[in-house]
């Protein structure tokens, strides 16, 4: 048993963190609002870094890595608030599909994210994995999406699409989608903690930093705690999906998604609160993390779904 990042995993983590710092500083991320969260250059940087292909074998241009590595990478993407159809594109690439960008949706969703900037929509349901070409979907863009960096479109119905899961394991793909989303969320939960702590150390009221008040620092301690427990669960989910777990894989993934959802959402709200009035302004980044968390959670079925799945395992 070794439940800590090994040397390669650490190197991967710091490489992707550096990439995010270089390509996705917050000014750049905010600047992507006008282009639906994506620019040709930033997307190319993600492709070049192997974010989408890292689980393909080296012979197919990938890095031959597993879900543990993917989870480490997606945590960093979440931390940097990298926008775009990251999970769908990663899974499509892993399944051997050729589309440049694929967004994930549920069959009955009335709102689909990243529709305009994707080549196709992937739907995973009980029967299989379906790919629906973007131009076959009549979508109406929403002017003011909840997360300004996650553009969404209204749709009334989705065509059935083409079944693409020949030889693929549908339930495994579902679990992988959850684990990668959970990784994004845990990165967000950590970033929210860092943001709140930094502000609480700096902001002065009553002649001292507000972070010296227990009423404030205890909020931050709870944020750290939620993020760290969720991180342990998310890493465990990745390890289980690679076949190196110590328990039931579906349960590990479901639990990770539930804890990461709770952590990112609760920490997002706490981060706004710690910022006081400034937290209610558009200018401060706190709302962007919270809104991304809320969008990711909603797009992946909502926390109640995962709580029900956990209960069903009891």
């Amino acid at each position, binding site marked *: *048993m070794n439940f*800590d990042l090994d040397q390669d995993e650490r190197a991967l983590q710091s490489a992707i963190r550096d990439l995010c710092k270089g390509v996705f500083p917050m000014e750049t991320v905010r600047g992507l609002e006008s282009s639906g969260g994506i620019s040709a250059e930033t997307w190319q940087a993600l492709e070049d870094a192997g974010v989408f292909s890292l689980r393909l074998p080296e012979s197919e241009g990938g890095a031959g890595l597993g879900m543990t590595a993917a989870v480490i990478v997606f945590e960093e993407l979440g931390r940097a608030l990298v926008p775009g159809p990251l999970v769908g594109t990663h899974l499509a690439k892993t399944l051997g599909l050729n589309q440049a960008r694929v967004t994930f949706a549920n069959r009955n969703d009335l709102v689909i994210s990243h529709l305009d900037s994707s080549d196709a929509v992937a739907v995973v349901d009980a029967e299989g994995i379906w790919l629906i070409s973007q131009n076959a979907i009549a979508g109406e863009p929403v002017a003011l999406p909840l997360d300004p960096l996650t553009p969404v479109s209204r749709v009334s119905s989705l065509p059935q699409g083409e079944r693409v899961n020949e030889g693929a394991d549908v339930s495994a793909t579902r679990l992988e989608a959850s684990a990668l989303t959970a990784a994004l969320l845990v990165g967000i939960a950590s970033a929210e903690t860092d943001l709140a702590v930094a502000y609480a150390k700096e902001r002065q009221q009553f002649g001292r930093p507000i*972070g010296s008040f227990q009423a404030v620092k205890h909020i931050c301690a*709870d944020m750290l705690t939620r993020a760290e427990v969720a991180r342990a*669960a998310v890493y465990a989910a990745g390890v289980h999906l690679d076949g*190196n777990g110590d328990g039931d894989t579906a349960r590990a993934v479901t639990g990770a998604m539930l*804890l990461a959802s709770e952590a990112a959402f609760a920490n997002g709200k706490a981060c706004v609160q710690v910022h006081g009035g400034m937290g209610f302004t558009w200018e401060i980044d706190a709302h962007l993390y919270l809104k991304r968390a809320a969008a990711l959670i909603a797009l992946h079925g909502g926390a109640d779904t995962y709580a029900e799945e956990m209960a069903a395992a009891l």
Partner: protein
Amino acid sequence: MDLRYSESDERFRAEVRAWLAEALPALPPKPGPHDWDARRAYDTTWQRMLFDAGYAGINWPSEYGGRGASPTEHLIFLEETERAGAPYVGVNFVGLLHAGPTLIAEATEEQKAAHLPRILRGEEVWCQGFSEPGAGSDLASLKTRAVLDGDHYVVNGQKIWTSFAHVADFGELLVRTDTDAPKHKGITWLILPMDTPGIEVRPLRTIAGSSEFSEVFFTDVRIPVENRVGAENDGWRVAMVTFSFERGTAFVGELVRSMKLVEELAELARKLPRGSGSAWDDDGVRRELGLIAAQLDGLWHLTKRTITESERTGVPGIGGSIFKLYYSEVRHHLGDLAMRILGTAALATEDEPAVDHVRGWIHAMSISIAAGTTQIQRNILSERVLGMPKEPS
């Protein structure tokens, strides 16, 4: 990262499991909660059985008679004993988990030889005389006074929350030996023989209805200077040294018990009638159970991270405080949910199905207070881990 156990760890698990299957049926019947002599006998019998099988002091270094097990083996041992329903460490708690490790780190060879083997064999029971009525979270403000008189310290004062004091042979005692020094610098750590004249033990009844804890009063209690561990006025450091023994396993037994309890509660919810169905038909009940299960699983994973870290670095990381804080909250939630599911069944506290759940509900209230309250844990995490400024004093 890899969560699988090594072959040698799996061998160790199989060995522990086989021994438990043989040993547990040989145990005498469990005594009632208020029969303290019988409880001491039961717990020390179990300790002797552990000793004979080579499992006493599982994480103690082998040079002091321990098994010198790795943190992973320690985790496996705690998991297996808890799952098998083996006795809790009970009255041996302080000796094995606090006083013993302190002696290993700080005592003279004579002191070690006098106590360590007897603790391991279950022949010596220890209690802890740290907290006072005026010194709880602010432990270093303790006032129980020790004045040197020839080759003895003369102790006057009062301790509280002394677990198992009425059945203990020795106590680890923190006393004030310098009233002028800053509060952390005037404390001394003494070995207290509980049969010394001038000690009065008054059991304290807790909200659980039982009396694990006592108040201990000291009137001119004479303790030989040779019972001092470490230097005079260096007792605060001596008392804190055991934290370096903590490798993330302190609450593993607790955690495994709670994981079992959440499964039992789910089963109970399916059985207990509510309206035309069962409590399980309530969306709120199911989802809260699901959340608690995920949170306990998360703590299991966190434990493995902490253990890996301590195996690598030799020191405990931040996992311990995070565990304590998060677990306390989850344990409260589990107890509260059990009370809601049980309804009036909770009022018959000694009956099935209430007994374990109601005990657990009350127990939760001690978990978030003992060994650093939830509020103190939040101070520790925010100040020492997140580097936030202290409150001005």
